[in-house]
């Protein structure tokens, strides 16, 4: 699924450019259709069963086959929509990303948070993550930064204590210490 998501990440802008959206859909559905065809072929190697007419591969192939058809249908629809839009209009992928920079920054921080957790542990990682995202989202100085720090401390350490001591769910404690 990864290659498909990367293809879609490029060109799109929501509000003003119908064209960008249609184009993104065409590329996205083409990518997905190719992916599903590949998986469909791969599913053919799954073993059949002595006990039943359908083996491990039949149901996935049924679904994948239908998915390919639906993707192609959406692609045709989007291409029609694409033809209907103004050719000169820019796709505006750059602007689309810039407009949503906070959302992507938040998701990126979340990814870094997950990657660092096995090393520095849940409590420390959460504390840093909470502080970083609040900073990104606007708690830059003074009182708001102080509140952000307090929230980070309470929830970072508090959730760790709550889950590991009260609910007995063990969270990563960190490999570095």
């Amino acid at each position, binding site marked *: 699924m990864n290659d498909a998501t990367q293809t879609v990440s490029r060109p799109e802008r929501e509000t003003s450019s119908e064209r960008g959206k249609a184009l993104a859909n065409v590329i996205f559905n083409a990518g997905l259709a190719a992916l599903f065809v590949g998986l469909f072929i791969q599913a053919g190697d799954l073993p059949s069963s002595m006990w039943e007419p359908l083996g491990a591969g039949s149901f996935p192939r049924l679904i994948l086959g239908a998915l390919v058809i639906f993707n192609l249908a959406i692609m045709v629809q989007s291409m029609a929509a694409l033809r209907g839009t103004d050719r000169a209009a820019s796709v505006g992928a750059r602007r689309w990303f810039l407009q949503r920079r906070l959302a992507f920054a938040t998701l990126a921080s979340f990814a870094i948070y997950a990657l660092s957790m096995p090393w520095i542990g849940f409590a420390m990682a959460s504390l840093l993550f909470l502080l970083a995202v609040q900073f990104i*989202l606007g708690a830059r100085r003074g009182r708001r930064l102080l509140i952000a720090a307090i929230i980070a401390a309470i929830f970072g350490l508090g959730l760790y204590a709550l889950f590991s001591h009260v609910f007995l769910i063990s969270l990563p404690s960190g490999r570095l210490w």
Partner: protein
Amino acid sequence: MPMTDALLSSVEQLFSLATLVSMMIGVVAGVVAAAIPGFTITMAIVLTLPVTFTMPPLQGVATMLAVYVGGGSGGLISAALLGIPGTPSAVATTFDAYPMARKGEPGRALALGIWASFFGALVSAVVLIVAAPPLAMIAVKLGPWEYFSLILFAVTVVASLVGKSILKGLMMSLLGLFIATVGQDPMMGVPRFTFGVDVLAAGIPFLVVLIGIFAVSQLASEVENPTELQQGKPLVSGEIQFRPFAVMREVLSHPGNLLRSSMIGVVIGAVPGAGGSIANLIAYDQAKRASKTPERFGTGIADGVVASESGNSATAGGGLIPMIALGIPGSAVDAVLMAALMVQGISVGPRLIMDNADLAYGMFLAMFLAAVMVLAFCLVSMRWFLRITEIPKSIIVPVVLVCCAVGALALNNRVTDLYLLIGVGLVGYLLAKLDYPLAPLVLGVILGPIAETNLRRALMADEDWTLFLTRPISAGLLILAVLSVAFTVRRILRQRAAVQA
């Protein structure tokens, strides 16, 4: 287990101190979470799930139901005081509750909504208790053919109800069904589509998909707009006066509206895929049509608040009907409840009422109890509600994301689940931006293994494919599935024609 024994046993389990306390916490959490714009009821329930792992089954489910019922009322708070629906279920509530609050009666608006919610939940619990057991009796007799057709029907209804394009809706359902096939094959245990990658070996856990789609990607879209992050001051200032019992009499003086809206909520809740977010609008619309003074709707009248709030609360019990009777969740929230039971090792389906009668009755009673608790909590704490809605998103979003991480880790304590969560969250975010509805995907993931197992069982019993079309119930369900698609296509074509004209 005879019915009375089961009932007594469930009462005993439900009225234990631990359960009452965790339900009360659940109610408070549900109300508070749903009152915060950007924090949906589904998110709250998804995040409650990992906490219930260590509880006994009934306590776990009762706690989640408490969050659910609490959430139904919480959405009302920001709808009435800020004019922003705290959850999609409260959209129609803003039509009349907000004008009423601005006209200087915020207390009356809130109290009306709270009482209407309470009666809505009550009606739906009654219908659930009456309807679920006989439906389950019929459902036990259904064969794998009927089950497979039922799932097809559920999937098409969901796809046609949400989103703008039925093609995209159906594609998302199929994608969900496909995601569910990753990991081990349900009948033979053969690994499928894992490509030797450790992260995928155990499949993509349902909970991870759920948190990724309904929390992570949702939260990402909450922080898109930098100007919206600094939340404005509530437009309704301070002083909230309320006279709960006078308002209760006022709500009860609209019995027709109350009952009609609640029944609309129950029926819509029982249809897969529809839910509170649709019920409140339809209930409001129907109340307006039935009213002698439809022109006054939208100006801040009691009827509008009562219709919307009793309608959305009643979906809670309605949604449990197909889940308890058939093992098919009616909405994302019910899917989470079902996942909670499955984690506890309880198989959900028509045999639930027979094999785990105490649990089923316990769930019915928990609905009542939660409705009472919400009422009590809301009436006591109403004065502080204004405060809750003032918490800025820059605090909510990171804190909830950390809770998401806890939720993903709590299931198996695997950090790889966290990586999957981020992947699902990102994909979900991009899909939402491309106008793909996400609810069908989630239902597809939970229905996938049930669909596959039943399809394969059906063909194992008899290799004849045509049985799906010749067994009457199965054929009827398939016809309904085709009709639901056909009607949606017709509706969309008409809308398109109307736009062009």
